[in-house]
């Protein structure tokens, strides 16, 4: 090895590798980009936004994998070895970012690079070796087909940086992962993207570059503080360090948010078998964590007489309680098999749960049973090698449910399977799942920690949830770009004096009732100071959070360009309509309202697309965007209110309307809305046959009448045009029963006859309903004096 070469601050160099051409080049990052997107996940997303055709086939040649470390890699700061991979996911078709704690990024930096970009597609199975002198493209014919541990051994990867896929990745199982040592890019099928590129592995030899923070003295001070906080915080120094992420098992069971029997129960009597406390006392033998970790949540344990990696909470809960198998040794064994084959334990176990339930419901023939470990190991191999039924299971829950039915219990969002927190007991987590960029991911905002772990927010409440999903998403995006392990946030946030010293009840009240103020005063400055002292680029806590927001929004925006919109931001029916067995009140997640608020805070349009305004504010890009027509919207919304109240009254006093309504089913829900605008009028036919104006989410409406433009709605609502005219000029779309729609139009005409003078009515109606003059006047006066102003 040559004598050490010093990198002062951040190196700002990326290695771009083209597998098709077997070529590589170096790309530089500017300080400006560094400040805006930090590194890790952020810069990787930014890079893909610039360079990738978002419409590409995830398993095709045009997909790009960006694997970037952050500025902390190699500084020796606590939990600083983590790095991110971003690509287009074959499982979701959307952008997926994943974080890993192996030593790949550390080695990569030692040869002078912050990240690698993989483009193209190799013709033959290939593995790459990276040294200070560049990249060599080697045939992987001898290691293709080997499992992850064997491959690592054959490549003598122990003391090298490495990224390796197993058979699942080679065979393009849509949720195949990528290993770096014994840590993984777990989610979203990045391993399948490697496989599709014929890329078996990347190894990096140790190089001679070393990092020296720009402001070293200050940096050392911050680092010491960071370690002090970690060693003092209950979660990082005790619960996670001792029990690993399985510390959450007991908590989740007690809070009834444990996934049990494909998310139907919320808790289990037998759960204590899998509590972290038990795993520690019976199995854990030593730490086995990410590189440079000061928290040490990872463990190795003696299971079945073998010292192997202990499963994480997601694995124990989803292979365990969710399949009703409370056998830690079995779960550890499956975990080990998944690690070898390269399967994401979350997606696969949730897919098994779906298949078992689908079999119970006679939708899909599947031999496994809840509560029985029989056949699980075998099926893991079948999936990785895509044999027999494994061929289909390799596609994940979304595709299975599309083919066989049972979407309501196919536990995924946007194609990504759920992790182990039942949102019916932590509504904020439900919101977070629904809007998370990569799908049903618990790490996007981890609201369950605030709701169930720290008890800052009441789980079954909507209060402050939108605000904290927003805040935590920003914070986590920033931390994942710095990049440190997000578990440091427990210590850094909660051990700072502002959160540590006031009585907890104070904090609780503030968080719940003054969320935005609380967010302003919460101290997360360790992160921004680490960035600043290493790079020498000025950064306040606000800048740091804003960078997180920028990264989150850009990722969302990319997804909307691919096709995500509001309808995709949802939860499986099970969480919206079915109560848990353990909950007498059978509560479900009231998603709509929280989501509406969240969209507003985020600066999303009604359809869930980031507006040009927010993109500009965050410095993502400048673009022209037409301004919404707010005045017209207000007027339309006012007339909606008037119409709603008038129809309510008339549905009790006008015999013609009553008769019309009689033919509609009880609980029939009608919705008038306007494309691209928020305003709407919902009408519900209640048991007494009265039409009640109320908010109705589009998904729940039986009949939807949509105005294509706000201008058309305005013309109709201000009686410049009649409904027939609007229909003839394609201004309205009707979704639902046309017979009831016709009946509704007749009701509208009658209502308008009461509301408007004859001269207007004549203009907008083909034929005016005959109503006795006296009655017309009396009712009109009643409507305008009582019904409309006072809603009586």
């Amino acid at each position, binding site marked *: 090895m040559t004598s050490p070469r010093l990198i002062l601050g951040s190196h700002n160099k990326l290695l771009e590798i083209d597998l098709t051409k077997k070529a590589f080049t170096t790309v530089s990052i500017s300080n400006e980009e560094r400040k805006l997107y930090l590194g890790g996940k952020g810069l990787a997303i930014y890079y893909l*936004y610039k360079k990738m055709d*978002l419409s590409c086939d995830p398993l095709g040649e045009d997909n790009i994998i960006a694997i970037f470390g952050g500025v902390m890699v190699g500084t020796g700061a606590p939990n600083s070895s983590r790095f991110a991979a971003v690509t287009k996911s074959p499982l979701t078709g959307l952008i997926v970012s994943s974080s890993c704690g192996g030593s790949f990024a550390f080695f990569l930096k030692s040869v002078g690079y912050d990240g690698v970009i993989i483009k193209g597609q190799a013709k033959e199975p290939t593995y790459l070796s990276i040294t200070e002198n560049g990249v060599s493209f080697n045939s992987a014919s001898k290691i293709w087909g080997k499992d992850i541990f064997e491959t690592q051994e054959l490549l003598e990867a122990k003391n090298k940086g490495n990224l390796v896929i197993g058979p699942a990745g080679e065979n393009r199982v849509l949720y195949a992962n990528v290993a770096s040592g014994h840590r993984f890019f777990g989610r979203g099928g990045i391993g399948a993207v490697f496989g599709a590129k014929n890329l078996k592995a990347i190894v990096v030899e140790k190089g001679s570059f070393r990092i020296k923070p720009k402001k070293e003295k200050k940096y050392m001070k911050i680092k010491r503080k960071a370690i002090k906080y970690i060693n003092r915080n209950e979660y990082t120094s005790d619960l996670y360090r001792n029990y690993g992420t399985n510390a959450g098992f007991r908590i989740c069971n007690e809070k009834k948010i444990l996934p049990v029997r494909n998310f139907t129960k919320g808790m289990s009597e037998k759960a204590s078998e899998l509590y972290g406390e038990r795993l520690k006392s019976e199995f854990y033998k030593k730490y086995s964590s990410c590189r440079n970790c000061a928290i040490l949540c990872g463990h190795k344990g003696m299971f079945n007489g073998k010292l192997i990696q202990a499963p994480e909470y997601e694995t124990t809960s989803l292979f365990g309680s969710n399949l009703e198998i409370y056998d830690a040794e079995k779960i550890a064994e499956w975990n080990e098999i998944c690690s070898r084959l390269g399967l994401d334990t979350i997606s696969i176990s949730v897919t098994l749960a779906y298949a078992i339930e689908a079999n119970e419901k006679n939708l899909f023939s599947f031999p496994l049973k809840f509560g029985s470990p029989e056949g699980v190991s075998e099926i893991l191999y079948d999936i990785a090698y895509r044999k027999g039924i494994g061929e289909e299971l390799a596609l994940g829950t979304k595709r299975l449910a599309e083919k066989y039915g049972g979407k309501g219990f196919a536990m995924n969002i946007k194609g990504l399977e759920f992790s182990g927190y039942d949102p019916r007991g932590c509504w904020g987590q439900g919101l977070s799942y629904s809007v998370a960029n990569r799908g049903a991911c618990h790490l996007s905002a981890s609201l369950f920690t605030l709701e169930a772990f720290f008890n800052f927010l009441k789980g079954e409440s909507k209060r402050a949830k939108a605000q904290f999903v927003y805040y935590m998403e920003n914070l986590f995006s920033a931390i994942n770009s710095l990049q440190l392990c997000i578990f440091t946030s427990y210590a850094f946030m909660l051990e700072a004096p502002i959160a540590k010293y006031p009585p907890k009840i104070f904090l609780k009240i503030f968080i719940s009732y003054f969320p935005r103020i609380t967010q302003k005063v919460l101290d997360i400055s360790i992160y921004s100071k680490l960035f600043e002292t290493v790079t020498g680029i000025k950064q306040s806590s606000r800048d740091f959070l804003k960078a997180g927001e920028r990264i989150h929004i850009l990722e969302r925006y990319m997804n*909307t*360009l691919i*096709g995500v919109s509001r309808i995709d931001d949802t939860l499986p029916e099970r969480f919206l309509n079915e109560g848990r067995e353990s909950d007498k009140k059978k509560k479900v997640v009231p998603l709509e309202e929280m989501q509406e608020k969240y969209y507003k805070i985020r600066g999303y*349009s009604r*359809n869930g*697309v980031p507006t*040009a305004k927010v*993109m500009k504010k965050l410095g993502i*890009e400048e*673009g*022209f*965007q*037409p*301004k*919404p*027509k707010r005045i017209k*919207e207000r007027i339309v919304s006012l007339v909606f209110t008037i119409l709603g109240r008038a129809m309510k009254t008339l549905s009790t006093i006008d015999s013609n309307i009553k008769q019309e309504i009689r033919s509609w089913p009880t609980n029939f829900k009608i919705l008038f809305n306007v*494309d*691209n*605008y928020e305003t709407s009028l919902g009408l519900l036919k209640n048991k007494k046959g009265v039409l009640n104006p109320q908010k109705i989410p589009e998904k729940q409406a039986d009949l939807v009448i949509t105005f*294509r*433009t*706000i*201008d*058309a709605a305005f013309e109709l609502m201000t009686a410049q045009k009649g409904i027939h005219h609007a229909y003839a*000029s*394609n201004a309205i779309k009707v979704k639902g029963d046309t017979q009831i729609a016709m009946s509704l139009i007749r009701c509208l005409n009658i209502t308008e006859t009461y509301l408007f003078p004859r001269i207007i009515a004549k203009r907008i109606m083909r034929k005016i309903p005959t109503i006795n003059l006296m009655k017309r006047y009396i009712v009109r006066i009643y409507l305008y004096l009582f019904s409309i102003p006072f809603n009586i």
Partner: protein
Amino acid sequence: MKEYFEFQNKTKILAGKKALENLPSEFDNFRVKRPIILTDRGVNKAGLVDKVIKACGGADVIFPAIIDDIPQDSSTEEVNKIAEIYNEKKCDGIIAIGGGSVIDTAKGVNILVSEKGKDLKEFAGAERLKRPLRPLFVIPTTAGTGSEVTAVAVIKDDKSATKMLFTSRYLMPDVAVIDPRMTITLPAYITALTAMDALTHAIEAYTCLQKNLFSDVYAWKAIELISKNIVELVKNGKDKERRLEMAIAATMAGVAFSNSMVGLVHSLGHAAGAVAKIPHGVAMNIFLPHVLKFNYEEIKEELKELLLPLAGEEIYVKTEEKERARKFIEKIEELQERLNELIKLPKTLKEAGVKEEQLEEIAEKAINDGSLTLNPKDVTKEEALRILMKAYE
């Protein structure tokens, strides 16, 4: 009657008052989120781009770039430049606001960005495109060329200084928006010239070899609407009703000739444009009656019929059957006269600034023009020259 023919118009047409306001729902239909706007200075200065953007209020789109310096003649250099911006800004659709050159430029850009090509020349000629292109929304600001519905584009190659012709069904725009607000500010002279262009499209579509029953219907109605509105609009351009009808007529004429092609008027017009730089519409206006006379024997039955939409029922009925074709040409000449009186629209090549010694070259070019193929009568160079002489003074 012809034994077999084809007819296609895939372009969705949004026409009428407030037509622009419906654009957002078309963006949704085509899943377009980042359309680039292409236009020219004049259109932008007249505030028409703002009108379009404003009308789209509330839509989930961002316009990453507005290119407003497209020159009169669409050229490869311009197309390359815009395609680069399109890619760099990750656009996913094109909105063309303008006349023929803007629309043709947009079509050229669309070829490059959709085929991921580098050189437009590779795609020149007939049916060289292999797959559907990116969504193209066209908002014409002149009522003339009909490019908003046609499957062709003409783009100048800067290197060889020749015009390249592109034809492919994939070039047909996806949506055309005909909104009277877009043509209301058009000056009288341009109004007349573009209307004559459209009228020529319709008449040639109805009289040339590839005509068919579908294109006939479009051509017929176009002639009726143009004839009804042209003079009045030249006198008073602020009449929204007429503007709309004229714009619709131009689009109809576009649909007609896109399917049945054009003939000798266009051959001469293209040649005169290339040699003497006279505007297309002016050339159409000058050559139309001369060509009708030249083709007379072959097309008199069609002209007889067309007297009805051109001159109205009364004149049609009053004119004796065998006189109707002549009457048709007479009426065209009358119109020519009228426009000349009102706004000095040139009636002769001389008035249009063509030099006598250029006629030879024009004739030469004209007989090699592709559109001659479908003219009902063959034309020799001498015949072409004779027509040109007649049109000269």
